[in-house]
């Protein structure tokens, strides 16, 4: 794996981050927006692991940060889905345009 420069891996993670950002901007359904957030978090994880492997192989800190990000992403997804299901019960829709009551 040493013949692949670090910038190529960073290209993949940067592209994945902006793909997730595009989905977050354009989607109007809350579940698909949550999926875009998962893509963004995963691109950050790729960065941490790649930096740990290429630049600081004498430490394990990138691995720990990745583990904590995955844990917190799981908690975040669970809470978000609980909120989405509760919103669906009261509004019968999970479109962000239909849930404007708490806007101001």
């Amino acid at each position, binding site marked *: 794996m040493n013949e692949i420069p670090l910038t190529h891996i960073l290209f993949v993670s940067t592209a994945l981050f902006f793909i997730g950002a595009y989905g977050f901007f354009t989607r109007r359904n809350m579940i698909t927006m949550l999926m875009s957030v998962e893509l963004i978090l995963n691109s950050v*994880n790729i960065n941490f692991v790649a930096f740990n492997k290429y630049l600081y192989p004498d430490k394990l800190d990138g691995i720990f940060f990745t583990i904590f990000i995955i844990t917190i992403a799981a908690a975040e997804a669970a809470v978000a889905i609980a909120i989405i299901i509760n919103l669906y019960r009261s509004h019968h829709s999970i479109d962000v345009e239909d849930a404007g009551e708490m806007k101001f």
Partner: protein
Amino acid sequence: MSASAIMFYILAAFILGTGLLAVTTGKIFRSAIWLLFSLTGIAGLYFWMQMEFIAAVQIIVYVGGIVVLIIFSIFLTQRSGQEMLKPLPRRAAFSALAVIAGFALTYLLIRQHEFKPTLRPAVEASVANIGVQLLSTTEHGYILPFEVVSILLLAAMIGCIVIAIKTKPAEK
């Protein structure tokens, strides 16, 4: 180009292609399945970087946990065969523009920066080393964040139950 390099480019194309399909496809269930493929490809990238533990965690937590949760919530709240509403063309065009500009800026910065690897001897990222450092109380141990995160998970679990619990209408 060796087999390892070819593997990397195949994995990268797989991750980006399925990720792009996950945010652009019209049916919500297909979108979840494309996300599943993209996350599996990322686990493959971790295997390629010889981080077996992270790859296993990725498959167990993301593919086995979060995507299944998302699919369940799709079945609970959506008619999954239906096409979703298309994004407004103006909004889609401007988001694509912003995203491409942001990507170009970030990648230019990455290209110009010179990364200097450390010269110290590498430590093996085995499960034993990870476990020892994760639970050690010495200077570079991660026991405090570990405990904090366990409390956070407990709080999130209780919070989910409280939010999603069905309240009975008040009886007269």
